Structure formats: C-alpha cells, structure tokens
C-alpha cells in the first residue's frame, strides 16, 4: 500500500466534515499592496499579548526607549517579551482596555513616539545553522513571537517539542472572509516566509513541509511555489476554499487525513502547524534580528472608503488604522477585531492592535446585518451538517439552555472550536456559539470549584487523620504517664488514707508486713533506673515544649478528647489504682521517717517511666498485682477509703489536663 507520504506527494487531499461557504469579500483588499502607516501619536503596548504569562517590566515611566528595545523580559516558562514598536518616551505603565472580547484591562506600556524611529542595535544572524538548538529557540522567544494566526501560542514553546515531527504544516489558508493579510504577505514576502520555514526546518527536521493555501489565492500560491522551488521537501498544497479549513485541526485532517486526538496537541501525532505570519516573524528575528513589533493587518469593511492591508505597529490604536483607511462610521456601527466568523466586536476604537490581530473589520448594516432574532430550534440539524468537528450543535444547544453540564461534556462540548459555522447556517438564528461559550465558562468555573472543594476535603481529611493520630499518640503517652503520675498524685491520697488508717489502727499486721516488703522491692526497682535521669529530663522537656505548642493551637479539642478519654483509662485501673494506693499508703506509713525521700523518688519514677515505659509498666503491673492481693486481704478497709479515692481521681483528671 502507498504510504501516507507518498499519497500526499501524489497530491491527495482529504476532507474535513462540515464547513460553510460564507461570502469572501476578499476582493476589497486582496489586490492592494500592503502599505506603511504613519507612526501614531501614541502606542499602547499590553505586556501580555499571547497565551501564557507576561514578562517582567524592564523600563520605567519617563524612560527613553529605542525601536525594538525589549520592554519586558521573560522570567518564567511560557513568557515572551514585548518590544518598543518605535523610539520614544514611556509615558505611563498602567492597566488599559486590551484587545479582548470583553475589553479586559491589561497592564500596558504607553509610549509617546519621538518620530525618529531609531532602531536599537540588532543582531542579525546570517548563518543560523551555526547556532545550536537552544540558541535559536531563545532567539525566537526573545523576539517576542507568538502565533499570529489568532491564538497567540508562544512560537518558541511550539518549536521546542521533543516529539519527532513528521510534517511541518505552513498555514496560509486564511479561510476567514474579508481577511487578506496572509495572502498579501505571501504575495509580497514569500522569500522571508521561506527563511522562517528553513529555520524551523533546521530545528525540527520534518520529513515534509506542506504549505497550505486555499484555491481562492492564486497569486499567493504562485508566489510561494516560486519561493520554495529550490527546496526539495517543501510542497505547496492548494486546498478547496471552505470555512474553517484554516483551523489547525481541520487543516491537519485535510492534508494528512489524521485527527489530533482530543486533549492532545498536533505534535503528539508528529505534526506542527505554524501560520505564515509567524514564520515570517521567525525569519525576520533570525535573519535581521528584528523583534516582533509590527504586523500586517487587513483593515476592511464597507464603511471604509479605502480598505487595505497595512503594516501596523503593535500597540497602534484601532482608530489610527481606521482613520488611515478613511472610515465613515454609521449608526449602530460595529468594529470587529478579527474576521466576521470568529472576530469580536470592540467597545471602543481606542483599543490597541496586538500581535494576534489580523483584521479590523468595520462593516455596514447591509453586508453584515445585525441579527438579534432568535427563534425556536426546529431541529433541522443544519448546524450538525456544518460542524467541522462532527458535533451535534443542536443537542448541545438544548443542553446548554437546560444547564445540563454532564450531558454537554458527554457530547464533547470542549471539542468545539467556536468556528461559528453552526451559527452561520442556523435558520432560527440561535446564537449557538455564545451559548457554548457561556456553558464552557460555567463548566470550567464549576470544575474549578469542584477542585477547590476536593482540595478542601482532602485537607480536612488529612487534618482529621492528623488529629486522630495525635490524639492516639497523646493517649498512649497518657496511658503510660498516667499511672506513674496518678501514683505520684496518689501518694497524697495515700497520705490521706494513711491518716485514716492510722486512726483506725492497723488491723492486719501481717498484710502490712507484706506490703512493706513489696513497697521496698518497688522502690529498689525504681532506684535501679535512676542513672538515666538527666538525659530523660531533657527529652521530656523537649516533648513538653512540643506538646505545649500544639496545645496552644488545639486546646479545645484536647480538652474534649481528654474528657472523653481520661475516665475510661482511669476506670479501667480504678480498682488496681485504689489497691495500689492502699498498698503504697501502707508502705508510706512504714517509711514515715523518710517521707521526703519517697516523694522525690516517686517523681523520679514518673520521669523514668516516661523514658522507659515498658519497665515502668511491668513495675506498675507487679505493684498492681501485689496491691490487689493485698487489697483482698483488707477489703473492708478499701470500702471505706474508696469514696475518698474517687474524689482524688477526679482531681487527677484536672491535673492531667493542665499538664497537657
């Protein structure tokens, strides 16, 4: 079977579905040479004119700049600089309405030209092949070049792909009615465009370079064919005139029969598409060292007495362009930036033209009547027949009106390129594209909110987990610390108890003797661990400090959790604690002589056991067991004392709270 490349070379073309044939109106400007405009009185250069992020402003108000001097510097990826379109003084740097469908304000550099148009130093490169890859990419970036067909994608990003590029497609289709800027550029500057192409050829080394031009531009086709004659791998392809054949995805389909998978970019299937204007700019940037400061703009429409293509400095006000084409505004005048299918109306003529502006259209009411007569959809599906993306615009419209966002996504709303073909053919004059735009914006907003909510949820869960973990940790610490601590506290209770028992006089001398022996043993165990003390004390201090910090943050929760947790741990051990207390009390009684020592010891026990919980736990358990035994023997005693012990434990709780 014939390979794709062979088929293409043989002249095969494929078809993109749908499409419409709106009246071209290109005759207004296509035969008039591009003219140079006088330097305007004021230039407004928005610092961001592309898809991505703006650079860092390098100049300040009042500073004198030369033509071509960089006004911003890229400081992060996806950033390209803007340059002074002519020499003059910076008047202000402020937010100004920009070239945007809703005239959003953009930080702009306002330049007052000195009229001398003095260039800064340029660094042309005669032999780009001598530069390495990175240097060329950087040159393209520093020249401020972004996609000039309308999207404004930074050219350096696009050219930097690490994918193997099979086809480089040069987009000279210009399918939008009225616009002839690329047509004239190809007619007059074919060689410069080829310069740009050869730079990309050097960078990307594609198998084939396809220059696509619609068949309504015979002169441009001839001109490009002549300029590319000496290049073996460049093929000029004439494609049938149909809107929107110039759409990147549609053009790829027409030339190669490939589809860019949804949410992928052409480079993923080995294709790169660049507009002729962009390639011209790349050629200029490399060969002449010129940054992107002017471009061809078609100024057209029947309210202009002299429609034509102009070289306009980026930042010129639309008014400047219109005035130079003899504009006679009418009632309900519309001024459109871009073509009649995808352009947007401007709220004012004081808006600057930017790098992506290819047309200023000032139509009268007859050529482009203002339609505002939406009627019911009759499901005729003329829209589906016109859709180049094979969507069902009619269904999308119902869903958009009903705000059924899942259905919209289900019907691939986001594959809509907003070309307006559906809208163009709709007999009910439904502003379909507007519905989609609104729906897309709402879905995006919703998704962002969902993401936010998801993040909040995750944060909340992580926080909960952390709290849980900390609670657990604290609890464990408590369990370990609680006993010795209670033991410490209970010495006081024990003392009270002891008073009671002394009052009652000892009933069983035997049990007392046993208790004494046990207590002594316990004391011995404790004293064995004494040497660790200082180190342990430091560690404990650190831990306490940490705990204190945390406590400051989450005091309330801690209180609650302690309230919940403390009783259970206490009740578990209540019996044994009581018994232990009794035992200890008895021991105390016996060790009355060295009471102060015992107190100190028990404090040491606390700290030691915090360090070595296992030993301590064992010791406590032993003590408890023994105490139990003891307690059994002196049950009557315990019954009397238990009410007092109860009081004591509730005090303990309070203490443990404070300690935390």
């Amino acid at each position: 079977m014939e390979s794709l490349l062979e088929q293409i070379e043989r002249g095969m073309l494929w078809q993109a579905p749908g499409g419409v044939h709106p009246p071209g109106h290109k005759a207004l400007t296509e035969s008039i040479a591009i003219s140079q405009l006088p330097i305007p009185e004021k230039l407004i250069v928005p610092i961001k004119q592309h898809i991505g992020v703006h650079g860092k402003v390098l100049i300040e108000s009042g500073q004198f700049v030369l033509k071509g001097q960089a006004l911003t510097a890229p400081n992060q990826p996806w950033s390209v600089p803007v340059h002074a379109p002519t020499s003059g003084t910076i008047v202000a740097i402020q937010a100004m309405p920009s070239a945007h469908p809703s005239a959003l304000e953009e930080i702009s550099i306002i330049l007052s030209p000195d009229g001398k148009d003095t260039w800064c130093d340029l660094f042309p490169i005669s032999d780009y092949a001598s530069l390495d890859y990175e240097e060329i990419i950087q040159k393209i970036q520093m020249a401020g070049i972004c996609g000039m067909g309308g999207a404004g994608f930074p050219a350096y990003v696009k050219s930097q792909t690490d994918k193997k590029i099979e086809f480089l497609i040069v987009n000279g289709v210009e399918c939008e009615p009225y616009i002839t800027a690329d047509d004239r550029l190809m007619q007059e500057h074919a060689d410069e465009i080829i310069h740009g192409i050869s730079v990309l050829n050097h960078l990307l080394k594609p198998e084939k370079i396809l220059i696509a031009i619609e068949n309504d531009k015979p002169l441009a086709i001839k001109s490009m064919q002549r300029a590319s004659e000496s290049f073996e791998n460049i093929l000029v392809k004439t494609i049938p005139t149909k809107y929107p054949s110039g759409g990147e995805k549609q053009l790829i389909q027409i030339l190669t029969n490939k589809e860019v998978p949804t949410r992928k970019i052409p480079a993923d299937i080995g294709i790169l598409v660049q507009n002729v204007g962009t390639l011209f700019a790349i050629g200029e940037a490399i060969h002449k060292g010129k940054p992107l400061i002017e471009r061809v703009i078609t100024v057209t429409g029947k309210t202009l007495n002299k429609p034509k293509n102009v070289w306009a400095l980026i930042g010129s006000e639309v008014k400047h362009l219109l005035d130079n084409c003899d504009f006679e505004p009418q009632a309900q005048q519309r001024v459109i930036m871009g073509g009649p299918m995808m352009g947007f109306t401007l709220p004012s003529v004081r808006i600057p033209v930017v790098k992506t502006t290819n047309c200023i259209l000032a139509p009268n009411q007859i050529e482009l009547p203002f339609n505002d007569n939406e009627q019911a959809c009759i499901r005729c599906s003329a829209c589906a027949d016109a859709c180049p993306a094979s969507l069902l615009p009619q269904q999308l419209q119902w869903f958009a009106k009903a705000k059924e966002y899942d259905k919209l996504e289900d019907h691939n709303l986001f594959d809509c390129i907003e070309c307006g073909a559906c809208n163009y053919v709709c007999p009910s004059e439904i502003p379909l594209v507007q519905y989609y735009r609104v729906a897309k914006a709402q879905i995006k907003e919703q998704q962002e909110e969902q993401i936010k909510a998801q993040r909040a949820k995750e944060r909340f869960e992580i926080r909960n987990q952390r709290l849980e973990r900390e609670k657990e940790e604290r609890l464990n610490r408590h369990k370990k610390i609680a006993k010795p601590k209670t033991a410490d506290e209970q010495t006081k209770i024990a003392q009270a108890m002891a008073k009671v028992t002394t009052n009652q006089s000892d009933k069983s001398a035997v049990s007392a003797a046993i208790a004494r022996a046990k207590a002594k043993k316990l004391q011995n165990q404790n004293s064995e661990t004494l040497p660790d003390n200082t180190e342990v004390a430091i560690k404990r201090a650190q831990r306490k400090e940490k705990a204190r910090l945390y406590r400051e943050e989450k005091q309330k929760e801690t209180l609650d959790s302690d309230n919940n947790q403390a009783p259970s741990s206490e009740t578990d051990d209540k019996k044994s604690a009581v018994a232990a207390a009794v035992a200890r009390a008895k021991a105390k009684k016996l060790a009355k002589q060295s009471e102060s020592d015992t107190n100190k010891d028990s404090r040491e026990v606390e700290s030691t056991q915090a360090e070595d919980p296992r030993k301590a736990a064992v010791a406590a358990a032993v003590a408890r067991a023994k105490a139990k035994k003891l307690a059994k023997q002196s049950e009557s005693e315990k019954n009397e004392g238990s009410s007092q012990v109860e009081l004591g434990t509730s005090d303990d709780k309070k203490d443990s709270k404070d300690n935390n």
Partner: protein
Amino acid sequence: MKASTQLNMSSSPHSHSQKTLSSVMMTVLLACIPGILVQTYFFGYGVLLQCIIALITAVVAESLVLKLRNRPIVPTLKDNSAVLTGLLLALSIPPLAPWWIIVIGTLFAILIVKQLYGGLGFNLFNPAMAGYILLLISFPVQMTSWLPVNSLQQYSLSFFEQLQVIFTGFTSDGFSVNQLRMNLDGITMATPLDTLKTDITKGLTVTESLTGDVFNGFAGKGWLWVNITFMLSGLYLIKTKIINWHIPIAILSSLAFCSILGPLFSPDIHAGPVFHLVSGATMLGAFFIATDPVSAATTNKGRLIYGAFIGLFIYIIRAYGGYPDAVAFAVLLMNMAVPLIDYYTKPITYGHGKIQ
C-alpha cells in the same frame, strides 16, 4: 471619526447565511404549489378549498394559543410553520370532505400536537400526520371518500358546487358525496390504493385489478402526475438545501426494495415498485412530510434509518394492514423512534475516533 461614537456589540459569528426559518418554510410552501395545482387539476377545486380552510384555521388556532401562552403572535406566525402544517393536512384529505373535517384536523394538529407540547421545535409528532390519523380513525367514512379523477366523474362539478358540497354535504342538485363517487354502473370508486386492496380481497390478481377504471395500466390515474410533481418539487428542495436528501431517498429506496421483493414471492397480491412509488401520498410523504425537521431524526445516519423504516412500514401497512395508505402511520411510528435513533447514531466527534 469621533472617538465618542457608540459602537454596537455582538457575539461572533457576525455573518449569517441569511437563510432564516421563515424563508425555509416559505420555500417549502412554494414548492407545494405545483403539486396543489396538479392535484386540483385532477381532483377538482375541492383541493384548493380545503387548503384555504386549513390555512385560515391554522393561523387562527396558532394565534389563539400564542395569545394564551403570552407569546409574540406576529413574529411567530411569520415562521410560516403553522401554515405549512395546515397545507400538508389539507393535501392529505379527500377534496370534498366536509369542512369540519379539515377544521377539526387542523385544530388538533396545531393546538394539541404542536402547541401543547411547547410549540414549534418541541412537538414529538408530525402535527399534520397526527391530525390526519385522528381524522382517519374518528371519521373513516369521510376520510376515505375520495372522488376519482375528474375524467372519471359522472358529474363534473363547478367551483361553487364543490364549495356547497364541502359546507353542506350536497350539491345544489341534491347529490351527496357518495353519489358523486359512483360511476355509470353505480359502483363507488375509490383511490387506486383502496381499489387495489378491495380487488385483492375480492380475489382478483394485481394485474387484473390494474386494468380497472381508476388505473392507467400500472398506476392510478391522476395520482401518477400528482406524485411526479411532488417528487420534482422535492428534488428542488434538496437542490436548494432546504431538506437533506437522506430521508426521501431512504424512504423511496426502502419502499422500492420491499415492493420488488413482494411480487417475487406472490406476484398476484403484491403490486410492483412503480405502482407503490407513484400512488397515494408516497412522494408528498417522502419529500414534504417525513422531512419535517422537528419530528425527524437529526443525524445523517439516523435519517437514513428513519427513512428506511418509514418506507418499510408504508409497504407493510399497504400490503398487509387494514388501511389503504400508510404514510401517516409510518411517519408517526418512526417519530416515536427518533430519540432512540438519534442516540445511537451520534457521529464520532473529531479527535474521538480510533487512534490512527
């Protein structure tokens, strides 16, 4: 220019094909005219009278509902859809049917089938055909009382006599519609489809039946030309891209295919494709009725399926059903299947196909 000039804002695209709803409907209406004239020529002024009554009823009914629904009346009427519904219904009923037949049918079509579902664009069923079926089921006698072509009629009626029949049921001489339908032998004549059906139940073969008065050997007299005219108008609509070719072509091919198969198995009781294609409402149905965008399938593949099934149902009902013609039933049946068809024939969006 003055910088203060107020600029108008609008959303893209700013260009429009200028093919509007109103102009689309108007083109369809105009395309009906040759057919109406031919039908009038063969079946008398009754056809025109029915059309006029239907138009008036449709406009009045539509205005009434729009008023009740607080919708703009004149702009909505200008879309011409109500007029078209009335016209298509009028073309489907016997020319001398009593006036209240077409009035009831049109009222039902406009008020119930169209407006109660939400107006233009929201109706599930083709209003004209739903109206037709209501009439056919409710008033079978009046709805099947077709006069034979003029040349076969015993009495030729003037315009005013036909007017009188429509509004009173009798001519000035006291003839009823039924009497008018009889031939010299006192036998009531019917449409070719009806006649064929009756003949076959009587035990005649198709060939024998086709030698009858109402036929010209292979198709119904008059009906042949009516169908050819509607077909030509329909082709014009396709050419001007008012309708898509998918539905009519699918209906006609499917009907032709079935009517080729039929005689292969039992030639005596099944008429051939030519007869089916130029009889009854075949062409009107294929080009003007089934193509009603609101109630038809919306994807191209879906339209082919939709059309093919209509053709199949037309054949089945004509050949085996109780009614002589079947366009209305077939269309309504398929109207019900439209959401299903549309769901399963969604085109593959760009970039969602198999990875090459």
